[in-house]
């Protein structure tokens, strides 16, 4: 097995409640992967186990060929950026970033800390106390603190969720940049498919502690295999096909104004480039989008529509 990080039949439990049953996946060196799934599906739990903050019930975790399943967190050479950032409130920004280096009695601490702060754009904040910083700045301190010790694997728990749209874009670029410059293997957790698509090379989609599907970001986006995956990636219309299988369409794949079916417009949401209509029909609720420039439909209006089979994705499983 040539994976840099490999998780094999990992079972994680809180007391008698199993949160993650027999999870297996592998990550190549230098890859940036996303653990994607709804809240409560076991993403944070999985990260904590990889970092060594939680002892697995069974299964193994390997990093760079070494079995670390029972190893103390301090010996695993992983970094973890907590969702809450978990900065040391009694220390300055500089001291926070220097913490791991001091523990290792590393040489050149001053230069390495300043270089770390530089890479996240916080050089001028070295002497500030961390509770005085904004959430975005705290997160970057946390990132620098994990990176300066040069971990083999960097884990990030919901790194984009608490940021506003502009900061989110900025942080995405910071993370991509770090991946390019340091080549560190990164696993980040998110419940938002758009974050996963924007950042990850590969996506592992989870549900109830199990992997539903994993693959390249584009593959996941265009070819979900199950109802759950399709739903998660925005295929909002899932209907049985003529042969009994399931077909899925994005709202943009539905043709409105013409076609063999008829329904009544129940509501509309404006999304910039598109207007998305909710239509009540004999097939159930249909969501269809029309370019914003085209004539709009009114609420209660009857509308004809088509579900082009050529545009549908065929799902393998329910």
């Amino acid at each position, binding site marked *: 097995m040539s994976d840099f990080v490999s998780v094999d039949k990992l079972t994680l439990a809180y007391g008698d409640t199993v949160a993650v049953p027999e999870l297996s996946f592998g990550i190549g060196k230098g890859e940036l992967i996303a653990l994607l799934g709804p809240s409560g599906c076991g993403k944070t739990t999985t990260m904590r186990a990889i970092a060594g903050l939680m002892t697995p019930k069974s299964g193994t975790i390997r990093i760079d060929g070494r079995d670390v399943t029972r190893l103390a*967190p*301090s010996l695993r050479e992983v970094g*973890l950026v*907590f969702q809450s950032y*978990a*900065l040391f*409130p*009694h220390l300055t920004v500089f001291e926070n970033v220097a913490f791991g280096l001091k523990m*290792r009695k590393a040489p050149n601490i001053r230069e390495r800390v300043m270089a770390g702060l530089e890479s996240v754009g916080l050089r001028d904040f070295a002497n500030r106390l961390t509770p005085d910083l904004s959430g975005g700045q705290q997160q970057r301190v946390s990132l620098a603190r994990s990176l300066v010790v040069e971990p083999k694997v960097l884990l990030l728990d919901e790194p984009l969720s608490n940021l506003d749209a502009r900061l989110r874009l900025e942080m995405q670029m910071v993370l991509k940049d770090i991946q390019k410059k340091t080549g560190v293997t990164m696993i980040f957790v998110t419940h938002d498919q758009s974050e996963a698509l924007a950042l990850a090379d590969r996506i592992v989609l989870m549900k109830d502690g199990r992997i539903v599907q994993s693959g390249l970001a584009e593959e996941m986006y265009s070819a979900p295999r199950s109802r759950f995956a399709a739903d998660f990636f925005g295929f909002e219309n899932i209907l049985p096909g003529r042969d009994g299988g399931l077909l899925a369409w994005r709202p943009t794949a539905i043709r409105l104004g013409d076609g063999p079916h008829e329904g009544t417009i129940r509501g509309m949401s404006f999304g910039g480039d598109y207007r998305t209509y909710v239509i009540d029909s004999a097939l159930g609720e249909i969501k269809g989008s029309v370019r914003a420039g085209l004539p709009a439909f009114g609420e209660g209006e009857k509308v004809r529509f088509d579900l082009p089979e050529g545009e549908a994705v065929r799902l393998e499983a329910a």
Partner: protein
Amino acid sequence: MKPSSTATGTIIGLTLVFLIGPFIVIILAALTAGNNLAFPPDGLSLKWFIKVFTVESFRISFFISMFLAVFGTLTALIVGVPAAYAIARYDIPGAGAIQLAVSSPLIVPGIIVGLALLRYLVIPTGFTIMAALFLAHAALILPYAVRVVTSSLQNLRVDVEEAALILGCSRLGSFFRVVFPNIRGGILAAFILGFVTSFNQVPVSLFLSGPGVRTLPIDMLAYMETTYDPSVAALACLLAIMSVGIVFLAERFLGFSRYV
């Protein structure tokens, strides 16, 4: 004024009268130039304040009380901080029982604790009075230590310790490098609270006195039984000023009331 604010004003006024009134009476009584404890004072002088320092037994019992307050409180903290940490961080079975055991000195009347220690520890085993006093004071302060430290631990997120573990600390290392610096204020507050509580303690110490071994408050009681002069009032004033001074400084530099 609305009736409710009249009532509030009255209650606050009465509270102040009953809290501060006795203090003023004692100060004035201690400042008397006469030879009897009396109010209003018979002329004004500082002679009883000076007399306090010449009474041999006061000097000895002051040091005993000081010793008990300092080392009893330190002992309570050495036991109490780890106990508070365990209660706050680990899902230990019987945490409720530990909490109750640790708070029992708050519930059981001190006089019973003192009597029990005398009857079942000092008399049958030959334990010294001093050792029994020490034990009683440490036990008395323990609940305060646990409480105050627990509440400052609750303000420190667990993941901060986990971050330290990942960055290379051992469990013990993370306690000293991360937990301790963040609860230092709480520990200091617990120390001050424990010190003042121990120093002013009467009921627990009442039965635990022997030849030459008495805490200051008990010594004052004993002194009053034989000598009814105003030096006890003067000493009471000095002690009150000391307690108020300590708490004032603690509030000023620590924000003491945050912790208590």
